[in-house]
């Protein structure tokens, strides 16, 4: 069912590939920590070799799976600005498409943690009066995030309808 998540206009704007790189870095780091932990445990407790091999295999498999999932998920993000509303879609396995009218926006915020800053990316989040509105776009290049926020804020003010 491709048309369910078809873009409202020409095409979805993708998020920055740095988002995938960042997530994969975090994944690799945790995998390395896990492997080191297993080796240390082996040295201390003298675990049987088959258990050691099994544990290492499990960590490596999880890491590879995670690597692939991150790729799929990062590619799945997309957003489209229209005249009166913003569309966001994401998810590869569990998919979601959200449409937020600018007039309903209460506020927009940008967040960028230390790691995100190192990669030059930020997340933009839209809030409406409904907590169900989960309108977040992660991994936007910094300038694009600032532009989007400004554009959303001015459009929101122009079309504000409140509750």
């Amino acid at each position, binding site marked *: 069912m491709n*048309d369910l998540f078809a873009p409202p206009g020409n095409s979805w704007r993708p998020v920055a590939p740095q988002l995938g790189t960042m997530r994969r870095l975090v994944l690799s780091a945790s995998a390395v920590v896990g492997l080191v932990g297993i080796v240390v445990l082996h040295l201390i407790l003298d675990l049987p070799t088959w258990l050691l091999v099994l544990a290492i295999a499990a960590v490596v498999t999880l890491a590879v799976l995670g690597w692939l999932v991150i790729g799929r998920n990062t590619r799945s993000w997309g957003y489209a600005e229209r005249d009166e509303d913003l569309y966001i879609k994401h998810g590869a396995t569990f998919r979601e498409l959200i449409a937020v009218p600018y007039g309903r926006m209460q506020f927009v915020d940008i967040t960028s943690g230390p790691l995100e800053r190192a990669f030059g990316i930020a997340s933009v989040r839209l809030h409406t009066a409904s907590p169900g509105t989960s309108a977040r776009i992660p991994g936007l290049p910094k300038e694009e995030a600032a532009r989007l926020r400004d554009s959303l804020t001015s459009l929101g003010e122009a079309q504000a*309808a409140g509750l």
Partner: protein
Amino acid sequence: MSSGTAQKPYRRLSPLTPVARSGIFVVAVLTATWRDLLRGDLGPFGAVLLGLLIAGLVYGGASWLRTKYWIESDELRVDTGVIARQSRRIRIDRLQGVDIVQPFVARLFGLAELRMDVAGGSAREGSLAFLSLSDARELKDVLLSRRDAVRADSAPLPDADSDAGTDWRWVEPDRLLARVDLQLLLLSTLLTPEAFALILAGLGSMLVPLLVGDASGITVSLPLVGGLALVVFRKIAGSYRFTVSQTPAGLQVRRGLFELSSQTISLNRVQGVVLSEPLLWRRLGWARLDVSIAGYAASSDGEGGPSASTVLPVGDRELAMRLAQHVLSGTVLDQTVLTRPPKQARWVSPIGRRFMGFGTNESLTVSRTGWFNRRTNVVPHARVQSLRVTQGPLQRRLGLADMHVDSPPGPVTVRAQDRLATEARAILEQEIAVSRQARMPAGL
């Protein structure tokens, strides 16, 4: 702070406030020490409690002395605090609603708490406790009429007219929309799962010891029975003498046996309604009506009684429908055609599918779910916040998707579950356009 406060026309809370506040404590002290008191001396435990009580009364008295409220330039000002002084300003034009609540102890003293619902404020900030009931009513009327006057002022209206308008308003009597009589309340409470559980647990705890000849199980079953009884009793007490009437300020809901509450809902804050018809009530044609109100989300009291969102705890379906129509400003609910999800939805929700429905009319989106408790959720197009389509892996196999209508927090959730994927997206696009249209007049 300033010594000039004496010139201000401030008012104080009821002088009985410290007594009412420590009322429960007095009972505790008496029950803990009555034996000692009868013997004429005060045990060490009693002495400590009595000391605490006196300290509490002194503090309460000081707090009462320090608490003043007055109205100044469209603000309600409240000064409080014995050690650290606080001064609150509540803008009258920002008031969403003013409710009068009478907790049981306060009611014994004829006192009431005034709760003001301020946009974006917490419940504590907007509370005055306690006033005498007549003072509370008077202040509520003053606040609401002031608010309307302030709001009317900002609209282009001649002053003389608005004055005449307020005068005339107070003459108009409240129109009673619905009343729940005790018989209906008791019968309908009897037909709830909680009541059934109570009867079963009660019978069980009586019969099992008789049959087995061993009463030790009582210690387990008695708290269970007691807990259930309390839940059922709270339901009844909370909805006792429930009335809904239309007043100039909005919809007024009055209820309560021990704790009286009177709540005013302005109709333009209603974000949606939900009609609940539990299985056991459906045969008898009974229904319950709740509303989502902007800014009231967190105030459901969660103790088994009706929450702040309940507009009708039980009543004829007809009546509930008429009330829903009134709350939604006259839109007809009955004419909406609800359609079921397609056949393949049975793989995702085998039982639920038959009871699901979704439909729209020119002003509403409506969805229905549930067999055991059938809920009909309604959100006007003009109140739609955002729209979502979601699809899980199984749904994708079957070519299905859910369409969610996001509305402000409350009991109402409109959702088109397990529709054909193409249909779900079509509904979303259509709803985006329709809700934009519906929003326009309000926005301008």
